[in-house]
């Protein structure tokens, strides 16, 4: 998972298959979550990537394990596109000790240090300045990347982060998945201008990918190749605003359009720009089917492995005021 190549995308061949494999893996993992979520086996608030998967798939394909990445509450796609083990993600959602965060994080807090993912935060906008700090810690040619939503760009710290990255010419890749919603509040009630305009103001190189491109994993991958290479070559930060659409509810697995929380046009957008559909149109059907089938099997196996992990059960008998180190030492899960 998480093809690490730099060549331009093609409709067939290993690069295209690698991209499609990641895209399809994210979709299948999240379909699995949707399938089991009603049973309450996953007691954690899930923010699904369905509809947006091409974005992490495309940019992560240009990154490697030395690059440090950070994300938000909606990071299943980032975790998987970055090469994360689906079983570790599913185990985390199941509250297992084998989960990527030992069960402590749940869906919103995933980590994968082996692949350079230093964590994700559920405080909207909170990771933006942290990403800039990551860029001060990496050694060239490594870069830092932050994957966030348009809501995060509402926060003032977005401007602070752009300013500092531009001022010090830091290798930060800001990737904004603009689904035009913060929960159920549309951009029109929140923003005077799109996030890209703010980046441009700070003289940060900015790319705007319309939904036609953001939903096309091959096109987006190609679009980002040179700009990311330039960040790596110390050209300073890069902002990428990807227009996209969220297929399901902000949180959970409900169809929130059907439930009246977002307008019908959102559903139509997803129908038109479902990245899986778009990719399949550009792939040989045989290859796509084969990869999907492999992913179905991989996800089932991962889920079985995840279920087999022991539940995280913690003891909290630390006295008031004691050092925080205690509890997870006892359990052992976190050490």
């Amino acid at each position: 998972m998480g093809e690490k190549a730099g060549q331009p995308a093609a409709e067939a061949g290993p690069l295209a298959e690698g991209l499609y494999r990641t895209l399809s893996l994210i979709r299948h993992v999240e379909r699995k979550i949707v399938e089991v979520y009603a049973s309450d086996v996953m007691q954690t608030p899930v923010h699904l990537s369905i509809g947006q998967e091409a974005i992490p798939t495309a940019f992560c394909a240009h990154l490697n394990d030395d690059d440090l990445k950070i994300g938000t509450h909606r990071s299943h796609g980032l975790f998987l596109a970055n090469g994360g083990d689906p079983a570790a993600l599913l185990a985390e959602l199941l509250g297992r000790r084998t989960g990527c965060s030992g069960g402590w994080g749940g869906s919103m807090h995933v980590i994968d240090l082996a692949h350079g993912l230093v964590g994700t935060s559920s405080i909207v906008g909170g990771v933006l300045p942290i990403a800039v700090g990551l860029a001060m810690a990496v050694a060239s040619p490594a870069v830092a990347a932050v994957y966030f939503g348009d809501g995060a760009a509402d926060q003032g710290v977005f401007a602070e982060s752009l300013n500092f990255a531009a001022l010090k010419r830091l290798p930060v890749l800001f990737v904004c998945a603009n689904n035009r919603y913060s929960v159920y509040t549309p951009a029109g009630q929140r923003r005077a201008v799109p996030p890209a305009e703010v980046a441009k103001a700070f003289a940060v190189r900015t790319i705007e990918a319309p939904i036609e491109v953001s939903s096309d994993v091959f096109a987006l991958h190609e679009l980002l190749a040179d700009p990311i290479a330039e960040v790596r070559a110390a050209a300073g930060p890069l902002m990428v605003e990807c227009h996209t659409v969220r297929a399901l509810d902000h949180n959970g697995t409900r169809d929130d359009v059907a439930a009246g929380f977002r307008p019908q046009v959102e559903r139509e957008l997803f129908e038109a720009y479902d990245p899986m559909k778009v990719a399949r149109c550009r792939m040989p059907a045989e290859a796509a089917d084969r990869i999907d089938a492999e992913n179905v099997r991989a996800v089932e196996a991962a889920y079985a492995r995840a279920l087999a992990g022991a539940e995280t059960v913690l003891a909290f008998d630390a006295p008031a005021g004691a050092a925080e180190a205690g509890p997870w030492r006892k359990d052992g899960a976190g050490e």
Partner: protein
Amino acid sequence: MSNWGTTPTLPEILPLGERPLAYSQAVFEAMETALAADERTRLFGEGVTDKAGTYGTTREMAERFGPDRVFDVPTAEQIITGLAIGMSLGGLRPIVIHPRNDFLLVAMDQIANHAAKWKAMFGGAIRLPLTIRSVSCRGWGSAAQHSQALHATMAHMPGLMVATPFTPGDAKGIALWAALEAEEPVMIMEHKWLWNLRGHVPAGCGPTPPAGPQVLRRGDDVTIVGISYGAADALIAAEALAADGIAAEVIDLRWLKPLDVAPIAESVRRTGRLVVVDTGHVSYGAAAEIVAATAERVSPSAMKAAPARVALPDVPAPACSEKTYYPGPKTVADRVRSMLRPAGTRGGRVTTPD
């Protein structure tokens, strides 16, 4: 399935009176009543106008009172809060909602450096009426950044009034008072697990100004002070203790600031024992203030046992293992029982006297 899981249905632990309503419904009534009663009120916050309507407490208010008075906002807690402060200084009576306590931390500068201090900084020349509603949540793997109860942090800041309404009646009355009559910033710290709690709620517009703690249940063996949802744990524990022949007095703190400790001290002088049940972290938390303020006021000779706190451990909330993380009625009851055992055999879950 469930969005952040379901809010638990509590047993009927409060008198229902003639007009029993759920807590969330009481807050809803406060919002609609305040908006109808005073043209100067405004209501806003993240998601206030969406179909979910802040856990149902603001549903359809924008349609009824117009988009100039009820509106949604950017995901930016500093401007949200600063807006409210400016509106207040300009003569309006804003009600701002931060749907989770955790998000208050983004707005701390506006809340604690500005709203709290404005009146004092100008020698009282100006007033800053402002209602900030914020909800503390727990459960369903909310995890460290979506589970905080920050009322103690707010109450430590002079210039803020801080309420933790527990009964539906208080939830309505206090919100109305803050929105319509208060002259200072009032932080109303709600708790999501109280949404379904039912109790008597007077009809109409009855603002209730700050008041001392209220006794929810009488008893002579131990005083249990509950803060916010802690009062529910306390009431349920008291019921269990009664079966053992232990009569617990249960007191709902209601207001952290202003704090009226006298009724608690009076109760403790009678029972000689104090347990404080809080929804925040134990160290440097609200329970510490109650224990300390009581200790200052009650002669040590009146105490039959050392006081105790039941609150969250000093560890950020994990997404997993919530059953062992959160104290509950059993924790409270066990704590009381160990307090009634002869000295030297004590032991506890969160705090361990040595």
